[in-house]
């Protein structure tokens, strides 16, 4: 193949777009109208679309070249044994990711042209969005850990810029700060994981930060060490993918414009942690304990976020917690070693969650930027198209067949059972009930019942075609992509098979069986797959039923402060309060204040000023001897001379 240079082209287009738009934005400052919005929109969409074209070309090529394409653009830096080239690697795993990023990315760019049409800073927005696409592509294509970290931090910075897009509102700017700083906590762990991995492998004679080489030598790592490395890297994933205890930033990140929430905080960036764990599959393969830990954290996050989601009033907050919850599912899957299931859920989730967010965006757009569901209701009459596509997405995320979410979620739950983690399976099943409940609660509150704000309702209307087109495409995707990952009973997952060269195949059957035993095991496997799938469907159906009973039938649902356990849910389990009291306030008011007002001025400067003062005091004492009376000096002189003379005469023998 001679086309490997294409790999470097994929991230290049959005980068060029970002630079161009950035310069346009900078030079059009103060020119009243700003640059031509059509032109800006065109440039903005061109970057990801061209990338999509190139990515598709690569993706198709991967069918025949499962080992992937590598292209080295230049040496980023190289010191001694640490060699970090700017090297991009499209294999089956990153191939899926670049398709998701460029495809969903392109759609969201197009959607944004309509959604952001009247916003100030239109050009700036698209410059950031293009830069984000570039960073995300570097993250997934980077062939070594530092390069992935470049993308990792890059998407974090773009996320920061975009959350704080409406920067004149201090709360939104603070939400941006929070997102970046919490992510930095994760990055801290990620870096330490990288350092440990490098120097440990180095002590075994392998000096590398390259993913392929790490994978080839992962068996040099002892399980304990792999556990440490895996945990540290997972801390990074916790930050980026909003897992407990670093999940608090994602809900606040909804301060950004809705397309941003769709692209960054649902479809792509937040899944980077899952991608990273899948990339490091070989290391986690050595440390099953770390995998178990990841699965536990993932499931805990899933249920905790789901409990919060059932109490939220803000439509985007519901979706945000839903995202956190679904990310938890993905981690549960990769923790169980079912990388294909995890990445498949990532893949399907990108479709239906982007659809949900963009649909919510259409609702918000129609309701004059009102995000509280307290003022929605009955919108199906005004927004039938949006309501329809969102219903498809809700069914998908609730896990009803044959939509995408059913297959991916089912695979994850089944993997829990197969690993023998029955409690995790149970929690996952219950979460799936909650998921169906809160999603349909949202849908019913928004689209059915009587309008709760007549004025807003009367002005509501469907968005322009640039917004509806992407919704339609995503809805089509939501309906179809699930069939790529069928369970064994229905012929097996094409998706898992596709990913096998990159992350290994998750065997459902013991490898040492043959003949009749194999056939029997297959039958048993298929039977249990049908059984568990029906459990999942029942859980989802029950959730929808509950939501209908509680919110679909009431004309005016009651909103207010929940009490008791639901109060805990509504207050997000008090994580923010605890962090504020435990970390934020003491840092500023105790440690910061102490260093500034006590240690520096008194203790350290005390010494600096104290030493000269000591000299001064000594000099003041000595000074008293100097009376100024010449005759006194002469006496002293005389006495001294006599003393010296007597000493000399007595001690020295002549």
């Amino acid at each position, binding site marked *: *193949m001679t086309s490997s240079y294409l790999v470097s082209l994929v991230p290049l287009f959005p980068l060029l777009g970002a630079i161009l738009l950035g310069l346009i934005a900078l030079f059009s400052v103060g020119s009243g109208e700003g640059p031509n919005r059509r032109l800006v929109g065109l440039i903005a969409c061109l970057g990801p679309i061209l990338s999509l074209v190139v990515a598709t070309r690569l993706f198709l090529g991967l069918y025949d070249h499962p*080992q992937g394409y590598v292209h080295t653009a230049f040496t980023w830096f190289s010191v001694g044994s640490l060699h970090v080239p700017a090297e991009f690697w499209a294999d089956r795993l990153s191939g899926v990711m670049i398709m998701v990023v460029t495809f969903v990315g392109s759609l969201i760019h197009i959607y944004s042209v309509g959604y952001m049409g009247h916003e100030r800073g239109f050009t700036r927005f698209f410059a950031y969005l293009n830069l984000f696409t570039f960073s995300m592509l570097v993250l997934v294509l980077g062939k070594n850990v530092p390069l992935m970290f470049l993308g990792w931090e890059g998407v974090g910075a773009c996320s920061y810029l975009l959350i704080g897009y409406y920067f004149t509102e201090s709360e939104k700017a603070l939400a941006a*700060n929070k997102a970046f700083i919490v992510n930095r906590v994760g990055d801290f762990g990620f870096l330490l994981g*990288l*350092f440990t991995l490098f120097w440990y492998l180095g002590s075994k004679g392998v000096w590398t930060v390259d993913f392929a080489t790490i994978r080839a030598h992962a068996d040099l790592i002892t399980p304990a060490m792999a556990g440490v490395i895996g945990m540290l890297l997972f801390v990074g994933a916790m930050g980026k993918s909003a897992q407990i205890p670093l999940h608090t930033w994602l809900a606040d990140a909804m301060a950004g414009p809705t397309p941003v929430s769709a692209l960054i905080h649902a479809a792509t960036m937040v899944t980077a942690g899952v991608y990273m764990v899948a990339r490091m599959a070989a290391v986690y393969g050595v440390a099953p304990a770390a995998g178990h830990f990841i699965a536990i954290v993932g499931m805990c996050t899933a249920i905790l976020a789901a409990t919060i989601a059932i109490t939220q009033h803000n439509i985007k907050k519901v979706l945000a917690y839903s995202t956190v919850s679904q990310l938890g599912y993905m981690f549960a899957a990769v923790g169980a070693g079912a990388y294909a299931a995890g990445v498949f859920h990532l893949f399907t989730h990108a479709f239906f969650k982007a659809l949900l967010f963009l649909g919510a965006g259409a609702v918000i757009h129609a309701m004059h930027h009102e995000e509280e569901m307290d003022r929605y209701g009955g919108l199906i009459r005004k927004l039938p198209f949006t309501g329809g596509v969102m219903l498809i997405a809700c069914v998908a995320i609730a896990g009803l067949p044959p939509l995408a979410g059913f297959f991916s979620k089912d695979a994850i739950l089944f993997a829990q059972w197969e690993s023998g983690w029955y409690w995790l399976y149970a929690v996952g099943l219950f979460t799936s009930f909650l998921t169906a409940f809160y999603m349909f609660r949202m849908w019913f509150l928004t689209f059915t019942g009587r309008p709760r704000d007549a004025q807003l309702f009367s002005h509501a209307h469907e968005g322009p075609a640039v917004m509806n087109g992407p919704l339609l495409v995503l809805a089509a995707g939501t309906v179809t992509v699930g069939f790529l990952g069928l369970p064994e009973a229905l012929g097996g997952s094409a998706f898992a098979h596709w990913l096998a060269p990159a992350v290994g195949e998750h065997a459902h059957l013991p490898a040492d069986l043959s003949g009749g035993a194999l056939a029997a095991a297959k039958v048993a496997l298929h039977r249990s797959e049908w059984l568990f799938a029906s459990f999942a469907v029942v859980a989802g159906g029950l959730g929808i039923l509950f939501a209908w009973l509680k919110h679909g039938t009431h004309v005016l649902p009651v909103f207010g402060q929940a009490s008791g356990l639901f109060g805990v849910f509504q207050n997000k389990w008090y994580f923010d309060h605890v962090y504020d009291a435990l970390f934020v306030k003491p*840092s*500023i008011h105790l440690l*910061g204040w102490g260093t500034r007002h006590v240690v520096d001025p008194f203790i350290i400067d005390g010494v600096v000023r104290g030493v000269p003062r000591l000299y001064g005091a000594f000099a003041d004492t000595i000074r008293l001897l100097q009376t100024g009376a010449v005759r006194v000096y002469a006496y002293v002189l005389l006495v001294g001379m006599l003393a010296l003379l007597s000493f000399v005469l007595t001690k020295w023998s002549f």
Partner: protein
Amino acid sequence: MSFFLTLLIAFPLLAGLAVMVFSSPDDGDFPRWGALVAAVVNTCASLGLLSGALAGEHGWLLRSFEEKRAWVEAFGIHYWLRVDGFSTFLILLTTVATSVAVAASWNSVKSRAHIYFGSILVLSGAMIGVLASADLFLFYVFWEIMLLPALFLLGIFGGSLRRDALYKFVIYTMVGSLLMLVGVVFLGAQHLAARGTWDFGFDALYGLPLSPGAASWAFLAFVAAFAIKAALFPFHTWLPTAYSQAPMPVTFLLSAVMAKLGVYGLLRIAMPMFPDAAQTAAPYLAALAVAGVIYAAFAALAQDDAKLLVAYASVSHLGVILLGAFSFSQQAVVGTVFHLIGHAVTTGALFLLVGFMAERRGSTLISDWGGAARVMPVFATFFMLMMLAAVGLPGLSAFVGEFLILFGAFRDYAVLAALAATSIILGAAYMLWWYQRTMFGAVTQPEVARLKDLTLREGALLLPIMLAVIGLGVYPQPVVSAITPASVQYLARFGVEPDKSPTASPKNLEPLRHQSREHAHQEPVTSH
């Protein structure tokens, strides 16, 4: 024998003296123009240092431009100049920073401009001299010359609390200088004792046999001198006061170059001349450096004046650099030298921006700002970029150095490096919070609403810095590979081989590779 380095040093020194002597207070713009022309000419001349670039196997091999003449023969003192990978880029940094500092002070200095601009040039010449010296005595002379203009600039042109700042600055630096003088004489005498002659040339002093006890005292004397300059905790308190009281262009120069000279001194003199003492003391010194990283970060969090905030931030970053200087892995050493440049660019730029803020609003108190991004969008863009660079975003200048330092230091001191790495969290916290309080939010104060955006002159000053920030972050390899040979030479003095893996021969690994087949991989298709 060339005169290149001599010219590079002498030109600003003489030009500075000329500006001071041949102009009087009422000479109008003469000192400004004179200083600017001299600084820019020197900057252009210093680009000649890059002429040593040869396309070798490892990228660049630098020319040393060596000059050696006897000076005081009785004591083995030479006039000996040369450069290598450690100093070349710092000299370039100095000349560029001087030009920027002169241009940035254009309007802010109203009276006694001839003293001001003359001092900046003299300071610049002395700093280049420090960087180019290859003789310990000559180094000391330039080191002391450097202090005088710095004292003038701080004492005459400083802010309202300059007395206090000057007081601390003088005490700290004088203590450091005296200790260094003791060390210099000690080393000369040791050479006399060991080899029978006086000699102060660096090459003669490396590898000198020293008695362990005396060597550790002399080592500490040098470390004290250099650590004070590089604001090692707990010798850092002069820095925030001096930085916040000096005029911002001067602070720019001090932070970008002068503080870096302390680290340079460690790498050039203190560490390699006393390798045994250095290796014994390094863990403790590294612990101090890390204490400084965290301490200063918390202090920065609590500041309400932007000048002090950036000053403490730079103490925190210097802590990271010092951690690298006290480590013995190649990544850490190269990272240290690289970060001297990468950090100089970002912190310097932040001080310039703070200076622009002070000129506009007359105050750098954070509470006097808020919402300025709407009023001055171009300024906000530059500020954002520099702020992100300062928090170590990959792809911008500070990341590579910081990454390499933490990466390398992790081998020698895993726990310390981990603690130092918390600065990526704390650094983000104080920087972002500052930015948000200054630039974001609604405009509530009428003074802020009236602020003007960046002028063309200011933009022109920031543009080269911005390009450097991006260039060093995206393609650092040319600089890295120029530093590498010097780092190998440096580490050899500690008996550290450049990393070579003991069992890295592919043969040893071959059986292991086979075992891992089940994870399945063929070599991917590669092309360059």
